[in-house]
């Protein structure tokens, strides 16, 4: 089973601060890591290969910090990794990201399964899996919370709003997973040390046969006009005192606000 797992390097969302006056997010110095559901996708791939044999290739597009970030994917059990850190790729949107990833997947070679998270933890647009499947001419099975192999294909349980939908599909196929599918492992120290020896390749736009004009910000389909924290005007009243007192104060306040009936 040849599996490619696509991962996105994102800022640690808990560590983003907001400038009080301008409401701008501060991203400088915020550590980068892989999205939660990307790790679920990787975990699933590693479990499949542990059972069925084969190879897991981790694939990620992002800043040069990926050279560090990707080590976690290798430590978690990917057999090899490809990172796409060409400065020409910077500012890519879902259109150019899918284009670049598709080229890289074709260069990686024959595959049975492409695994992604259902969305990235930062923007959650969920576009890349669908776009990738379209470019590669693959069927797609999204929102998967359970996966098993059958003769010549796989059976997946999709987590839809009202129902679980069980589907069957032949390989090769692109699958996106939800966080319910598994609990990603924490790499052990030995695995982290071994990760350093695993094959890691770094490909540029040129390596993928793409010109700088076809990728990155210029070729992106979106323009971001503003990106600010939503205005939240809250009262920020802290109620202090013994339990009985604060409960009384709270009930008084909520009654005044007209949000509880007394």
């Amino acid at each position: 089973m040849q599996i490619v797992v696509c991962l996105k390097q994102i800022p640690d969302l808990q560590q983003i601060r907001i400038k009080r006056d301008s409401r701008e997010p501060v991203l400088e110095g915020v550590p980068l890591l892989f999205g939660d559901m990307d790790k679920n996708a990787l975990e699933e791939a590693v479990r499949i290969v542990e059972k069925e044999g084969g190879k897991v290739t981790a694939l990620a597009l992002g800043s040069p910090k990926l050279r560090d970030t990707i080590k976690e994917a290798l430590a978690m059990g990917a057999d090899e990794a490809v990172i796409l850190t060409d400065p020409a790729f910077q500012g890519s949107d879902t259109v150019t990201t899918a284009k670049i990833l598709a080229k890289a997947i074709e260069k990686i070679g024959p595959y049975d399964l492409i695994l992604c998270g259902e969305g990235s933890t930062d923007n959650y647009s969920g576009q890349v899996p669908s776009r990738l499947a379209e470019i590669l001419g693959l069927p797609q099975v999204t929102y998967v919370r359970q996966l098993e192999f059958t003769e010549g294909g796989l059976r997946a349980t999709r987590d839809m709003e009202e129902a679980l939908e069980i589907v069957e599909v032949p390989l090769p196929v692109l699958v996106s997973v939800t966080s319910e599918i598994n609990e990603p492992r924490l790499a052990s120290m030995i695995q982290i040390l071994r990760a350093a020896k695993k094959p890691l390749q770094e490909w540029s736009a040129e390596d993928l046969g793409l010109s700088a004009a076809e990728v990155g910000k210029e070729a992106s389909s979106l323009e971001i006009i503003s990106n600010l924290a939503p205005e939240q005007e809250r009262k920020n009243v802290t109620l202090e005192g013994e339990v009985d007192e604060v409960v009384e104060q709270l009930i008084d306040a909520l009654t005044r606000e007209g949000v509880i009936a007394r």
Partner: protein
Amino acid sequence: MAEILVFSEKDEIAFELLSKGRELKEGLGLGLAAALLGQEVEGRSGQYFSYGAEKVYLGESTLLADFYVEIYAQALQRMAEEGGAQILLLGSTKRGKELASRVAQKLGAGCITEAIDLRLEGGGLVADRYALGGNTVASQVIKTERKVIAVMPKTFEALPLEAGKGQTVRLELELPEPRVRVVERRAKEGEAVDIEEAETLVCIGRGLGAEEDLGMIWELAAALGAEVGCTKSPASDYGWLSEERIVGLSGKKCNPRLYLGIGISGQIQHTVGILGSKIIVAINKDPQAPIFKIADYGIVGDLYEVVPRLAERLTTP
């Protein structure tokens, strides 16, 4: 005339989008059309006219009886090309999101999913969506000629017209057999609960120590006439509550008049779902918990003392 094309697998969402489309088409000088896809759909076209569709494309095929995104994307692409659609408005349901992305790729279009607002600014169409895990709201413009936008359900109000009529256009679609096959559909275990509709919402997080402690939370909710929601962990990791009760990025977005967060630290993945609350109350023993920053009223204290006392005071006159 070039047009705005509306589609959702859920009629009520399509009606919301048509209602907004009526406003947008004036500013953009476009027509307003809707797509109906399925095995037999013609009967529904009248309702679509009554929400403002001037034209309804009918795509009827046994291959459209089940929602297969590849096939639906192909049918929708055909309709977009037939009428020269410049803007496709879809519902940002799970199916709508994957369809929007796949049809956008077919059309060479830029796409925005999970839009929470749409407006015309300087003659262009601007969409807002949450970014950076809900830390920010990004206002975005799509630069490609064709634009695909999936809008969150209930973003716009569905407003029927007094009288509406239009033209139906039946398209002969050449569709392939789906490669994916649904073998079973199973209703989700759990309950029919709609926390998005709750006027008062009590939410719990990791601060609640054990499943048994839910008892006092339900008592408080009963005293307030509230629904109970939660962060991701109590539902997904511990299974104490059904997943329909998760509030936040991976769950529901709620706009209650009163929200009470109990033992919730206030991670952005949860709080993005409560920003529309009129009043936010937080009870947490950690004074540094980020939830206090977005709270109107905060109690730094032990929830095991505060919650029972609050419930008691609310039930005894």
